[in-house]
């Protein structure tokens, strides 16, 4: 059941992105940035986590969850060590994704041949 709800939820998010792209002048870069901000907005009141509880882990996949994690970790950082924690904690839960993308991409770039 949660597989189906994950399917619907992530599918809907991607569909909205596609509709925005086709009906406005936004580039994919605009839209991904927009979705990160929307994810962060939903993270303020913990709404994104509620959605994730309801619809399944699939919602961790779209870029919206990146924004949500940033806000959540920054807030957890604040609880841990005050104002400084906002800076210290922001990337705690997303750092695996960022460093993973950087390191794996670097290794790939060393091996792969660039297109001509």
């Amino acid at each position, binding site marked *: 059941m949660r597989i189906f709800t994950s399917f619907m939820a992530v599918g809907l998010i991607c569909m909205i992105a596609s509709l925005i792209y086709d009906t406005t002048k936004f580039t994919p870069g605009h839209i991904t940035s927009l979705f990160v901000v929307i994810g962060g907005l939903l993270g303020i009141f913990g709404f994104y986590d509620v959605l994730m509880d309801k619809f399944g882990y699939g919602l961790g*996949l779209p870029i919206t969850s990146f924004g949500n994690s940033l806000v959540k970790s920054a807030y957890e950082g604040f609880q841990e060590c005050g104002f400084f924690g906002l800076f210290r904690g922001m990337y705690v839960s997303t750092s695996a994704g960022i460093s993973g993308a950087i390191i794996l991409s670097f290794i*790939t770039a060393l091996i792969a041949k660039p297109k001509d």
Partner: protein
Amino acid sequence: MDKKEYNDLVTSKSKNPNILEDAFISFLAGGVLGAFYEILTCWYIEMFNLTDQIALGWSCLTFIAIAVILTGFAVFDDIVAKFKFGVIIPITGFAHSVASALIDYRRDGFITGLGANMFKLAGSVILFGSVSAFLFAIVKVIIYG
């Protein structure tokens, strides 16, 4: 041809008119990836006895690794052309943008090529994600204390 005609022509040529078809393909592709993500995360949790946060991190890394490897084999560009936002909005799009920037700028050398251009495309996501997250976290702190 005056300016208005020209603009009309440009918009008619530059955007794909099949809005519904695009939306449906994105829906299907994104949905399938989301379903796989759910399955993979549940499998990680059961198989390795992980908490859901750690399992989500592993699933995220797995999808990133797949996207980066497919980009390395120059397959992912075709996938993006076919499934559009179904693969751009998921974390695979982020990984693809980093990997393709690194591969494309490799010829410019390690520092001025790789280092300087790594976040050429993904940078906006990190920049606006961070700035907005900082503001939103402050709002959250003001509300919840």
